[in-house]
């Protein structure tokens, strides 16, 4: 068992640093190795694999206060805190995980992992296929949300967590939460599904396909074997990220941030960067193309496309939800046009039809899909109220 190692994951000694006091502080990722083969939805099997994860807060004696956090398309295990004193940026959900925050690490023990197929340390296309001794690359088995949830359950076993007090996630992370309620209803006490959808629309898939084509048509892609050619399909990844990024922001937030502002005073009447928004998108694309693996990105977009728990029930989501038995919190954001409020409401309506316990809030926000990552007073108060009720219920049980 590695449970005794959990305390090493988080250092509370932040006295000398500039790290804010409402942060979990310095954190160190850990790796769990699994030798039991994992059978995947695509029919193939992963013989063994690693999962990289971080934990924040402390698991209580009853092991009842664990919260699993699931990441989105380009996310990873580093959800909160800092890896180094001089890190410029904290984890991706720093706004909502920490002492006194919505997921209060004074009360909850948070587990956040990098999903299989990712490129931040868990087994994925960049890892070596033990059977061939080559980098998996494009031969890495296709993943689904269901496969991820099974691997997450195995990590929970390893950590001695029988039942999560809550599983929470935004966007693709929210899809994992939904799958948890269906695959392991007895192991999840509360589900928080934020800025998500029960399935992608044709338009969502279309955007993903443009991103994939951008990567796969880059001459540096080499059919996914770019590692062997010492190449990276940077231009493709950059384009994929640029188009993705447009769908994460709203028209208003882009207008507010950049308007029609120019980088210099006048037009150049050429194709170099002229508008600020062009500069921003190129910068986002460039940064991403050097930090994210192309095969992982392709795989993650397919995971999104495949998710549709209602499909095996003839498209009837309410019927698909039958196994779920925990309270749900569903949150959407007014200016999110990637997964607009109507998509969250599809899920809420099906939950109501299936007589499940559900609360729903539609947060006014100008920040588009990205709003789920950001601090916003009403979002925080809804999130905190729901998590606070969970904490209260838990302490009632502990008191007995």
């Amino acid at each position, binding site marked *: 068992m590695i449970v005794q190692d959990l305390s090493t994951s988080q250092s509370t000694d932040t006295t000398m640093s500039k790290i804010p006091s409402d942060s979990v502080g310095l954190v160190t990722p850990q790796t769990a190795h699994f030798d039991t083969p994992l059978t995947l939805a695509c029919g193939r099997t992963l013989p063994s694999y690693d999962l990289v994860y971080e934990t924040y807060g402390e698991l209580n004696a009853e092991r009842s206060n664990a919260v699993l956090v699931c990441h989105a398309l380009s996310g990873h295990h580093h959800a909160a805190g800092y890896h180094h004193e001089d890190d410029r940026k904290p984890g991706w959900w720093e706004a909502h995980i920490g002492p006194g925050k919505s997921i209060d690490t004074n009360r909850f023990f948070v587990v956040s992992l990098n999903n299989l197929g990712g490129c931040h340390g868990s087994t994925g296309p960049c890892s070596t296929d033990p059977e061939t001794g080559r980098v998996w690359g494009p031969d890495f088995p296709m993943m689904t949300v269901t496969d991820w949830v099974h691997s997450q359950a195995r990590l929970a076993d390893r950590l001695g967590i029988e039942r999560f007090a809550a599983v929470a996630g935004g966007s693709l992370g929210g899809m994992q939460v939904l799958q948890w309620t269906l695959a392991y209803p007895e192991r999840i006490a509360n589900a928080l599904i934020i800025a998500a959808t029960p399935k992608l629309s044709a338009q969502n898939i279309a955007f993903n396909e443009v991103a994939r084509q951008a990567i796969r048509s880059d001459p540096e892609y080499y059919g996914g074997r770019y590692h062997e050619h010492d190449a990276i399909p940077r231009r493709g990844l950059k384009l994929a990220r640029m188009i993705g990024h447009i769908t994460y922001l709203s028209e208003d937030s882009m207008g507010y941030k950049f308007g029609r502002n120019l980088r210099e005073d006048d037009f150049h009447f050429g194709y170099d960067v002229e508008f600020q928004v062009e500069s921003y998108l190129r910068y986002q694309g460039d940064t991403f193309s050097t930090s994210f693996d192309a095969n992982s990105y392709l795989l993650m977009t397919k995971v999104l496309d495949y998710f549709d728990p209602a499909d095996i029930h003839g498209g009837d989501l309410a019927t698909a939800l039958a196994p779920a038995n925990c309270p749900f919190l569903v949150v959407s954001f007014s200016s999110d046009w990637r997964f607009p409020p109507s998509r969250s409401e599809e899920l*809420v309506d099906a939950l*109501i039809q299936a*007589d499940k316990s559900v*609360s729903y*809030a539609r947060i006014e926000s100008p920040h588009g899909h990205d709003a789920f990552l950001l601090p916003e007073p009403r979002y925080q*108060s*809804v999130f905190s*109220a729901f998590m*606070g*009720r969970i904490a209260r219920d838990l302490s009632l049980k502990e008191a007995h």
Partner: protein
Amino acid sequence: MRSDLALIRRWVPEGAHILDLGCGDGALLDTLAREKGVSGYGLEIDPEGITACMARGVNVIEQNLDQGLANFDDNAYDLVIMTQALQALRRPDLMLDEMLRIAEECIITFPNFAYWRHRFYLGFKGYMPVSKSLPYAWYDTPNIHLSTFNDFERLCRDKDLIIRDQAVGNGDHEAHWSAKLWPNLFGETAVYRIGRHGA
């Protein structure tokens, strides 16, 4: 507890599946869940009310009642409750139809515009009434369809609905005998339990 909520409690059957339209901070649903084991949802649009519901563990759905209740199936509930919200809706008459499509019975409370204090305000002072049950000025009030006991009963007759119970709420206490005798004059809050034929 508000007098209309106290009255409602008596009319809610044990273990009923209910919908509370305009549930506010969820106090009624919370009390009914603990005392009568009811289940169901509250609908609300006020952010503070929604957060309060979540903190209590009451199921609350952010939904604008004026946009209808199409996401609720026919006869899916035992009871639909609406306290102090009917007068703020764009079409109270259509809402009544919707409520009785979803459940066979509903409980409705609203401020009685014919309450003597309101009449005094309008009749003698010449101003739009302001009171504990109508605390707004004419220009910022959400109450766009005010009515009286008589008006509501006429609407029920026109729609061929059954009035199963009628009660009077006055502030935070039980109504005076005068209000029970002449509700349209002395009743501050109207409380009705109505149903439909053929159910």
